[in-house]
């Protein structure tokens, strides 16, 4: 029983990180109509950049690591949008071109990591060591720190979307790109910023989860697929759906990992996704996915 509760707490914490990662992916689609298949590579890059600063070449504390790495992943995203995505926007088969281009980019970025850092797995130390006992349950400081970091980023994101000019522009573009352009919103700048924010969230996820999982150059794919499954299950473009699906699948992962082993996590996730889609084809909170 006590073990179960601790597993659930872990699941809940992973859930909020997954939500962060997945929401970046869905944001990028919702605003910019881009499904970014290189999303997982930014996760990898976030983790490896953090490793460089915290372990490999310096021993900065995590707070500084975040302050340095997140802007880098943001700028990488903006650059990708400018150089690759934007020229493709005028294509009639935009979706298809973006799909292939970002797939290629993912392979490029992952192998760049491989060439620079080698194939051996790396790991980040935990943010904080030790654990705290609350009402009889043991929670590691690491988990608590993860939760707080993720929650802070999530709150900043929500406030940003709701209160700032840029955030409001993003929401306007998501609802009606042409209308947004007519009222003077610089469409391409909003696309670029959105792309940057999304890759930054992916990078943040990489740093947060790296102490939990080992880092490998191709590790980002697992998280891309996890983001995909959360996003589809929740309903593409729905932030609320992403939130619920993130928690649901995070808790499921903790439970499955505890009872059956981590290898079973992805198969079980996929099974859940399959069932969700059979019952609700547009995902839990999806609205417009169905076609004739």
């Amino acid at each position: 029983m006590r073990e179960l509760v601790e597993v659930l707490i872990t699941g809940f914490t992973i859930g909020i990180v997954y939500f962060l990662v997945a929401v970046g992916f869905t944001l990028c689609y919702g605003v910019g109509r881009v499904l970014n298949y290189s999303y997982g590579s930014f996760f990898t890059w976030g983790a490896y950049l953090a490793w460089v600063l915290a372990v490999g070449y310096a021993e900065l504390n995590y707070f500084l690591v975040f302050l340095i790495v997140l802007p880098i992943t943001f700028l990488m995203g903006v650059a990708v949008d400018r150089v690759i995505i934007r020229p493709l926007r005028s294509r009639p088969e935009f979706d298809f071109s973006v799909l292939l281009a970002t797939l290629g980019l993912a392979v490029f970025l992952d192998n760049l990591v491989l060439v620079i850092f080698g194939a051996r797995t790396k790991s980040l130390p935990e943010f904080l060591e030790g654990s705290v006992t609350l009402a009889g349950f043991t929670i590691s400081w690491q988990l608590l720190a993860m939760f707080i970091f993720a929650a802070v980023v999530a709150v900043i994101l929500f406030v940003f979307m709701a209160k700032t000019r840029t955030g409001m522009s993003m929401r306007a573009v998501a609802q009606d790109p042409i209308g947004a352009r007519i009222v003077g919103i610089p469409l391409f700048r909003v696309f670029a910023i959105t792309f940057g924010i999304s890759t930054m969230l992916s990078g943040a996820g990489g740093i947060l989860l790296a102490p939990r999982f080992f880092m490998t150059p191709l590790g980002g794919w697992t998280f891309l697929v996890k983001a995909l499954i959360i996003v589809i299950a929740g309903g593409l473009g729905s932030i609320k759906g992403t939130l619920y699906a993130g928690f649901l699948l995070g808790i499921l992962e903790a439970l499955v990992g505890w009872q059956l082993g981590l290898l079973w996590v992805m198969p079980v996730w996929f099974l859940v996704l399959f069932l969700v889609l059979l019952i609700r084809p547009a995902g839990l909170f999806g609205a417009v996915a169905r076609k004739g």
Partner: protein
Amino acid sequence: MSIVADQGTTSRADAGKPGGGRLPGDRPKALSLNRQTGMTIGLVVILALLPLVVGDSNYTMRLLVVSMIWGGVSLAWDLLLGYAGVFNLGQVGFFALGAYASAMLSENAGLNPWWGLLAGAAAGAVVAVLLGIPSLRLAGIYVALLTLAFYEVLSPLLTVGEAIGTGGKRGISPITPYTIGGYTFTGSNQIPWYYVALGLFVVCLIVCYFAINSRFGASFIALHDSESFAQSLGISRYKVSLMIVGVSGLLTGLMGAFYAHYTAVVSPRVLGLEVFIYLVIMVLLGGVGKFPGPAIGAFIVIFLSDWLREFENYRMLIFGALVVVIVMVAPRGIMGAVDSAQQFVRRRRASPATPTDVGRSS
């Protein structure tokens, strides 16, 4: 209110029979000689004769066999990507399942490997259709997401599937080779493998050719061209996509089955990113939706990759960048370039002062 036209017996064949016969602008008759057919036949003839030239080099023969395997798969995949507009990213998954089906049946159940070809094809088709049922009702991007998830989940699934005989992480090895009238295929003699591979490759060419150049093909090209219009003319998007996904899965599973026995090993490694990205480049380089371009792309990629072997890790770096560059610079691939060249020549021929007969005399 009138209740005319309720239940009738007119068969589709009757109803669709082109009354009054063929009209100008109708589809060219199957196998009428055009570039597509010409290139296909040329490709097969060259491949049939090639062992006379390079038959001594087991190494080259091996590369050719592998090219034909992946050539068949890229054609099957292009049927979805280029013609039907179904963004399936799980093609390698169908391939792996075909390979596993054949390998498991021959190693665990003692089935004759030749029957494994059928089993592999069936496995590919069934899984493709099963995956299509929930996803094809949804918008195109969902198909891409769901099939990618399927592809990524397959590797852990096959690893945990040790209990049902998938061999876990190490996979299945060795796998029984084919035998013909007492003769057992071996690695040291590539000729028999080569001609079986050629046979299967030709099966892929023929099926894809007729899938594209048939009424059925017209329906999914129509959906790709203009989806709403196609539906308004009576085409069921769901049914057509499901059928084409089945055909594509079938061919891919078939090639997978052969692959298992040819390499004598199948493991979750076949689901690696490397294989996937190779396949992407084959189709892209050959020309998306430009039959038989993707098959030609397969030969180029396999030989190019062999040539770049000494670059090791940099090879994938190069290939990743190559995908981005092709998409941005030459999205229609080699066949697109051939198109442009042809148009250029035609324009040059049309420009002289006496336009008549110029085309014919040269």
